[in-house]
């Protein structure tokens, strides 16, 4: 079937996209003019025009599909490598890709996550979400990543960007140390004195 389409346009199957465009335009122009001829020639031209349109559209959509499926095929290879734990193999396959769309960044973030490179993984996910804001899979993964980090750090972790509160204050009410920071500091000072005296005076 495809070969017929190519022969309608007078082209070879392996022609480039440019050649295809040129042939389509030339033939379309020619038959668009001929359409207005008298009698049978006019009808023939109209028929040819429809054929050319159909052929061109079919070839274009087929080419797009095969490009997509080859890409999708490669992506499934990468997913397989990741599942098997072959991270360096997966990274090599990713590096070989020329086109880097949202899915590429998503897979890169998965590879980084498996390597425990959480910061880079988050960055790649953010790029993927920027490129494809409607994709739910990316959003879910991003939320999961943040939840994992936040849940492991609920209690003591405070905002380091200038507002770190003393250790005593970060706990829930019933768990607060009486005396707060004073106790902790005193305890530390005593412990440090203890260590220093140990070193110098053999006080044990």
């Amino acid at each position, binding site marked *: 079937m495809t070969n017929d389409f190519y022969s309608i346009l007078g082209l070879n199957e392996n022609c480039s996209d440019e050649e295809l465009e040129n042939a389509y335009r030339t033939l379309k122009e020619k038959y668009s003019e001929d359409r207005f001829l008298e009698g049978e020639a006019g009808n023939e031209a109209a028929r040819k025009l429809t054929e050319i349109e159909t052929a061109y559209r079919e070839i274009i959509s087929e080419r797009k599909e095969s490009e997509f499926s080859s890409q999708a095929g490669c992506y499934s290879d990468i997913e397989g490598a990741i599942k098997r734990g072959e991270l360096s193999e997966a990274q090599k396959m990713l590096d070989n890709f020329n086109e880097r769309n949202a899915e590429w960044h998503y897979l890169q973030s998965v590879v*980084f996550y498996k*390597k*425990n*490179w*959480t*910061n*880079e993984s*988050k960055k790649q996910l953010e790029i993927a979400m920027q490129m494809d804001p409607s994709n739910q899979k990316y959003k879910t993964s991003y939320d999961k990543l943040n939840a*994992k*980090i*936040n*849940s*492991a*750090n609920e209690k*003591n*972790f*405070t*905002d*380091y*960007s*200038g507002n*770190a509160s003393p*250790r005593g204050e970060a706990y829930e009410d019933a768990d607060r140390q009486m005396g707060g920071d004073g*106790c*902790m500091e005193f*305890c*530390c000072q005593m*412990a*440090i004195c203890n260590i220093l005296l*140990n070193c110098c005076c*053999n006080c*044990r």
Partner: protein
Amino acid sequence: MFGYVKPDLPYLYLKDDRLYKALYCGVCKSIGNNFGQRARLGLTYDIAFLSAFAHNIKGADVEIKKERCVAHPLVPRFMASRDEITEVCAAVNVALVYYKIKDDINDRGRGRVKLAFFKRAWKKTLKKYSAVSEIVERNYDDLRALERACESRIDAVGDCFGNMMRELGEYVLGDASDKNSSDTFYFLGKWIYLIDALDDYEKDGKRGEYNPFRYAFGEYKTLSELLKNHGQEITYIFGGVFAGLKNSSKNLKWKFNHDLIINVLTKGVEAVTLDVFKKTQKDNKKSNGEER
């Protein structure tokens, strides 16, 4: 690079304090007996932690007795008995100190005297523990390559040191090593590198030396400025490491009470990080005239 791995003192049980010091003394004596007296000066409490971890996971108990030593000849103190595990930890300490000094020479050109001081001990480790030196040397080479290339991805640079610790952990633990222990060592190593880099941020900036935070976030005069502008992302990076440590140490197969180790891995690591940040707060307050 050394001296960052320590317990959060207010939360350290007295029983663990004694154990910790005894393990330190045990490794110190082991270094002296196996690799020469000089190398004992390079010992830090980080290796005491490694000794505690290894003995626990491998299920090897230690005997704690009062003994004397060269540094403390008069009053005997509690020391852990020496065994194979202590010897491996001693070798790891010597190798780490030796290659750290070598790395400093590469960066700054200073430290050749120190290197000569430790060289004999290091050579002795090669007889039985050449694998340790191979691991440390290879990972330091990888790190140097990344530093020369001015790598700006924090995860990539931290990965080298994390990997070094992971491999050392697997070597020390042997058959008792599993994914959880490997991951714990990986995150600990990554954290050590990152906290050291953060602590040295200002120094490296003045000297014009490589610091991953300089390339990732830019040059600021002080650490507090860096944190003011990029505090969120730096918090996220450390948060990721803490989460990794907590999740991997949760499922370790302990053979003895592990209060000490969990204190170091969960509380100690965060406390030290907070201290580095607090240091900048004190600078801020002074400059704002709040502190008298």
